[in-house]
């Protein structure tokens, strides 16, 4: 993520012919970074374990990807973390049960659990039917936005699935 930001900045500096000693340049750098940060966080981000996270105002909503729900089959039970639990990135924080298999959930970022989707406690099938909307799992008050920026974006994740599992 960091390197792609640097490329953007370099490209811009070429475009505007700015001298790096210039104070204008500094303000442009900060603006560009601000711009790219907010831009990044509008999207959904993915882990290599197939969870997704969508961030709004430091609150990340977490779910599993379409690829993951398809691989699991019909989810019959969702074990979610308790509200108030502090989790670290990659921590086990629950499990989904399908076809007699318990699949561990790993938190895509560090933070505190602030909400869980109570609908999936009674209808876990929502995870299969609507993994990006009604089938979200829990919300997390993030301790670091950078962790999310290091995850894969939609395009990278699509590529990751192709490479890893074909």
């Amino acid at each position, binding site marked *: 993520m960091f390197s792609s930001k640097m490329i953007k900045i370099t490209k811009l500096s070429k475009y505007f012919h700015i001298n790096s000693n210039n104070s204008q340049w500094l303000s442009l750098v900060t603006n560009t970074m601000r711009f790219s940060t907010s831009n990044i966080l509008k999207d959904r981000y993915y882990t290599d*374990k197939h969870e997704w996270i969508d961030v709004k105002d430091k609150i990340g909503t977490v779910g599993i990807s379409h690829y993951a729900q398809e691989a699991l089959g019909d989810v*019959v*039970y969702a*074990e979610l973390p308790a509200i108030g639990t502090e989790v670290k990135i990659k921590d*086990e924080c629950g*499990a989904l*049960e*399908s*076809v*007699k*298999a*318990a*699949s*561990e959930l*790993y938190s895509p970022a560090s933070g505190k659990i602030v909400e869980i989707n109570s609908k999936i*406690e*009674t209808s*876990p099938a929502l995870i299969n039917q609507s993994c990006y909307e009604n089938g979200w799992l829990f919300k997390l008050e993030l301790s670091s936005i950078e962790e999310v920026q290091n995850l894969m974006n939609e395009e990278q994740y699509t590529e990751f699935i192709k490479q890893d599992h074909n």
Partner: protein
Amino acid sequence: MAFVIRRFYSSVIEKTVMISRSKDVFENLALEHWYYRHLDFTNKPMLLLWMNDNCVVIGRHQNPWLEVNFDQANNVHVARRNSGGGTVFHDNGNLNMTFFTHRDVYNRKKNLELIVETLKSEWNILTEINKREDIVIDNNYKISGTASKLGRPNAYHHCTLLVNCNRELMSALLRKHEKNIETNATVSVSSAVLNLTQINNKVSINRLMTAIGLQYLKTVDGKITKTLGFNYVTPNEHTFPGFNEIKKEMESWEWRYGRTPKFNITIKSNEQSVLLSVKNGIIENVSTTCNVSLNNLFSKKFSMNIVEDIKKCLKTIEV
């Protein structure tokens, strides 16, 4: 260079068969969990064979009070495992097998086919894998139940295999009764079962361990396979640092009962009823149709004794 090294390593598969010396369900579940947590099975798949003394093992998201007939469970341990699926009974006539692999090569069907193949080649016993991925004889009688746990990087599939199990005790412990429990927990699917010795009395646990272990070691997955043979293990803290802590957790009330998905139970007697709401195994709410104070039940650990006490109490009320 990195590429070359990776290719070299990924072309050698090391296989091991472990046999646990313990017959204690909590020790064996702890050993299984220790392996899952501490080893990396990338290119090093492992088969663990284990047996337990009389016990009932419920799935990770199950309700023990719904699954087990506790009035029959004297001297029988009730354990909760980490994998999904339903409740099984174990005794010395049942062989448990855990197939550990990297998550990417986890393949339940392949493991079950290995068992089916072995039964056929060694004893000419014809079995099939059904839709639920259990092994059955004559399309109906279950001889093996399956469940699994999927994590990163490791995963495991484990299954039971009935050789000469005490079917009467199994049935007494697991037979379904109406328990008036309302829950989203995973509910077991009952099946008629059969022992392998009923088909062929030459089958024994020891012969099965040897036959399945050898078949496992000799199965080559299109790559160079190196076998590390059979090894006996005694699960203990010395060989497996951290083992005691996992065992303690497996034995704890919090894991076995406290992890039960929340549920409501209705207790009826003498035309009266009491509804208990139980979360994390603790009574959270009590409501009743009669004029009896049950406030002392709040925050108590739920148990079948409490159900019996409530029934007794309801019987004393004049209607």
